[in-house]
């Protein structure tokens, strides 16, 4: 009889007091013993509903069974067959809302740590030698716009189907939000580089510094350059601002800018030329995963006081529980039911403080969450050196503004079929945050995967 335990095998982590001051990965990964022990907790349900919670349909019980048997090779083959970004998703995917939420153990006990096991298998795979060779067996070429999760997955699937695939990336390095957004301590860049190298080994070409809509038009891709189909995975990278006074003072960043300066431009390294603020006291406005990434980054950049300012309560936060707990352990202060009203000038055009008011929760609003209501005469001031706004992003309009016939919603999302990713233009597909608005890595990966199948069916029906 396999050993049954009520609790998830805990993920070994770096000690909070130490990790709050370095950029090394927080989670250290399961050992073989941890993994086999945890894998034995899986009930191997006849009708595994966990799989229905996975946007890319990972054969969860099968790969976990292979782990339990010590067959890492088999586990990695099963995992890789469904998820081309396993080592990324094993780290950043919100399994607690997806596969793990549907685990049969989840009701009475803690669910199987599917995510931790996914990471274990993918990390083992990374230590093995790969002998992938390009197998371009088809004449059709497909162009992918954007090298974030949606684009990478779509490219990988199409390359495996034998298509000649080229990814166009606007920045100087591929990965999209996985590179500029997610910090090193959650997703080390050498892991991302390894995942990308698997794709280039398959023959996927990546052209950086090419902005579709500016350097080349979408029409040039489909006509002059001979691409049979195009997939748009341009993400939701346009930062939103609050519109409160003082927002343009020096020292106020969008989370995108702050994280890009640190992640993509390597602001954490003394060798990097890109300057970034090193505030002693830093306030992050918002409470999603990006806010957690930003506040924990501020901590690691030397802030003695790193705060989250959020107008609702802890319960309404959209950040993953793990991120929230890690942040708390690291010493991040949470100021909930606190609404920023104004960023105060120090007299020289720089940030001096944040003027806030206290809130109380009222009736649910249209998002279904309790609406925060201001408490009269509750204003107060928090002295800060930097303010980082992590209040959401919308799709980047560069491509849609410069491309005729591509339908978008009023909020700038590309209109695309949920199942196939097909857009208002024939042979142009789209998926990920560019279609859904800001969402998750795994949803983007799922959309990229579905679009790849749809592209294949369109180009080679039957």
């Amino acid at each position: 009889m396999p050993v049954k335990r009520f609790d998830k095998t805990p993920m070994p982590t770096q000690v909070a007091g130490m990790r709050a001051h370095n950029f090394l990965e927080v989670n250290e990964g399961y050992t073989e013993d941890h993994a086999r022990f945890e894998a034995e907790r899986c009930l191997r349900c006849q009708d595994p509903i966990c799989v229905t919670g996975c946007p890319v349909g990972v054969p969860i019980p099968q790969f976990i069974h292979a782990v339990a048997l010590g067959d890492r090779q088999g586990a990695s083959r099963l995992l890789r067959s469904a998820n081309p970004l396993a080592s990324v998703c094993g780290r950043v995917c919100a399994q607690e809302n997806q596969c793990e939420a549907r685990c049969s153990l989840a009701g009475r006990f803690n669910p199987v740590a599917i995510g931790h096991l996914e990471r274990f298998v993918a990390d083992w795979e990374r230590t093995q030698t790969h002998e992938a060779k390009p197998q371009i067996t088809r004449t059709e070429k497909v162009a992918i716009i954007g090298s974030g999760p949606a684009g990478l997955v779509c490219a990988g699937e199409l390359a495996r189907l034998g298509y000649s695939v080229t990814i166009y990336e606007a920045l100087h390095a591929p990965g999209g939000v996985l590179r500029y957004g997610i910090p090193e301590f959650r997703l080390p860049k050498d892991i991302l580089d390894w995942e990308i190298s698997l794709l280039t080994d398959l023959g996927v070409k990546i052209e950086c510094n090419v902005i579709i809509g500016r350097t080349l038009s979408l029409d040039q891709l489909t006509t002059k350059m001979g691409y049979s189909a195009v997939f748009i995975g341009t993400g939701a990278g346009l930062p939103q601002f609050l519109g409160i006074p003082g927002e343009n003072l020096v020292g106020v960043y969008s989370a995108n800018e702050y994280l890009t300066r640190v992640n993509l431009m390597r602001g954490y390294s003394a060798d990097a030329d890109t300057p970034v603020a090193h505030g002693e006291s830093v306030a992050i406005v918002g409470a999603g995963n990006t806010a957690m990434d930003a506040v924990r980054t501020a901590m690691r950049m030397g802030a003695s006081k790193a705060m989250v300012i959020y107008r609702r309560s802890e319960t309404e936060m959209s950040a993953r529980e793990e991120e929230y707990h890690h942040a708390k352990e690291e010493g991040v202060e949470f100021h909930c039911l606190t609404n920023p009203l104004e960023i105060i000038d120090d007299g020289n055009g720089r940030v001096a403080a944040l003027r806030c008011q206290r809130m109380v929760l009222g009736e649910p609003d249209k998002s279904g969450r309790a609406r925060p209501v201001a408490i009269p005469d509750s204003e107060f001031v928090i002295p800060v050196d930097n303010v980082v706004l992590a209040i959401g992003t919308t799709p980047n309009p560069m491509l849609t503004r410069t491309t005729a016939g591509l339908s978008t919603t009023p909020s700038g999302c590309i209109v695309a079929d949920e199942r196939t990713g097909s857009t208002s233009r024939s042979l142009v597909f789209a998926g990920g945050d560019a279609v859904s608005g800001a969402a998750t890595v795994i949803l983007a990966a799922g959309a990229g995967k579905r679009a790849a199948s749809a592209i294949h069916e369109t180009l080679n029906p039957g």
Partner: protein
Amino acid sequence: MSRIVETRQLTPVTKMFVLDNRLIAESAQAGQFVMLRVHKDGERIPVTIADYDREAGTITIVVQAVGATTRRVDALDVGDEILDVAGPLGSPIEIPDGGAHVVGVGGGFGAAALLCLMREIHAKGNTATAIVGARNQDLLIMTNELLGVADNVEICTDDGSAGMKGFVTQRLAQLMDGQGPGRPDRVIAIGPMAMMRAIAAATKESGIKTMVSMDPLMVDGTGMCGGCRVIVDGKSQFACIDGPVFDAQLVDFDLAMRRNKAYAEQEKAAAKRLACAPAEAV
């Protein structure tokens, strides 16, 4: 990677580079810029496209060596590669469809950006006038090239060593009074923020549509960071995707000037580190 095929020292701190980059050369238009990065730890900096040659597949940029990155660019020569060149970014300048007198004002090394602008203005059947200014004759750049593409080139120097003695704003005021090539129908200013603000003030009462090319700090140049936001008509606009050219009368110049100094101290320190570094590190 873009190879440098030609360089020319224009002033002691200003250097022109012709880069081999066919994709950008084929799509560039006046008013757009590229993002450059010169080494693996380097920052991305926006640089205006001064000119492009679609046949030759080259673009021309002019760089003033003031900070760490621009000094690294300055140290490069023919045959060297620039690690990353991305573009063209930003929206092209809107040019009237013909019959208009369009005046481009170029201050300092901004004068270089008038090259492709003048050519496009002329090609669309308008009269293209360039007003360029510098402290003295030795600091004037690209005047011969401008003579080849503009219908009129008006030169101003602070000390009178070339052209008219005075500022570009003074010459513009004379044109508005009907002197020289005459009253402009539109003015486009590219140069230091203080000059652009002065141009905006000069045309304010005239009703002449005036555009300025904003040059804020940027990280990515593709709409992602929002660091380049400028307030135009009370609304936040991203220079990289909504601009960089905006209606001069609606721009909040004070704020833009303050934001451009955000990293003044760090930039000074970086430039100092570079000055102390051994030559091969540059």
